[in-house]
């Protein structure tokens, strides 16, 4: 499990950033799958897991 803090304007752009990070770096699609959830909090930047 990898936790990320991402600053983004909206949920869609946040998800896009997370998906790209997973595809390009965090997971190797040859051997790994990934799924993620994004949660938002008012006082803190959004957290993706």
């Amino acid at each position, binding site marked *: 499990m990898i936790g990320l803090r991402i600053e983004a304007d909206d949920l869609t752009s946040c998800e896009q950033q997370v998906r790209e990070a997973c595809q390009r*770096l*965090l997971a*190797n699609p*040859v*051997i790994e799958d990934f799924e993620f959830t994004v949660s938002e909090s008012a006082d803190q930047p959004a957290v993706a897991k």
Partner: protein
Amino acid sequence: MRFGIVRFPGSNCDFDCERAVRDGIGQEPVVLWHKEESLLGADVVLLPGGFSYGDHLRAGAIARFSPIMKAVRAFAAEGGPVLGICNGFQILCEAHLLPGALIRNRGLRFRCHPVHVRVESTATPFTGEYDAGQILRLPIAHGEGQYVADENTLDELERDGRVIFRYVNPAGETTEEANPNGSARSIAGVCNAERNVVGLMPHPERAISAMIGSEDGLGVFRSAVAALTSLQGATA
């Protein structure tokens, strides 16, 4: 002939590659720092073993983003010979310059001992000096050397003769026992479709004199010299 040896933070077989090139075959090694973007006129590029960037995340996962890898990618695209050994093989897979991936050994332990591999194809710049079917004795030293790919990729590799080395017993047969890490179809090394990029888990650079157990690895480096010499002859 100039052999570029990429030094990532955490590379630890770079010295051995230098020694193999310099003392083993009398050619010129040149160290390529990971933060640079130039190959300094290298004719061949070697990605040595070790634990680049501490193998953080996955072996080879971070190295592929280093500046030098841009140059390596361009060099490979132009047909330049690139060899990845051990961690270098892992980096080439992560960089999608080679198909498949390397996962933890079956048995989940690091393993270091001599193995036998069979040369499956001499049609690469790193195996031309061997005989097809020749058995080599080379050391392995890895925790993540189990080669995996989906069945279609494996079939394609077999069909195109892109499996370059296979783990075998001393008699040259593939057996469960002779496969030290559980690699699919006993694969120890593969090449790309253009055949100029080769990766393998065993260490030919550690098999360059009988004094340290074997000199069977010298052929890998000699092959590169021969391949480039004939290429230069053809274009001259």
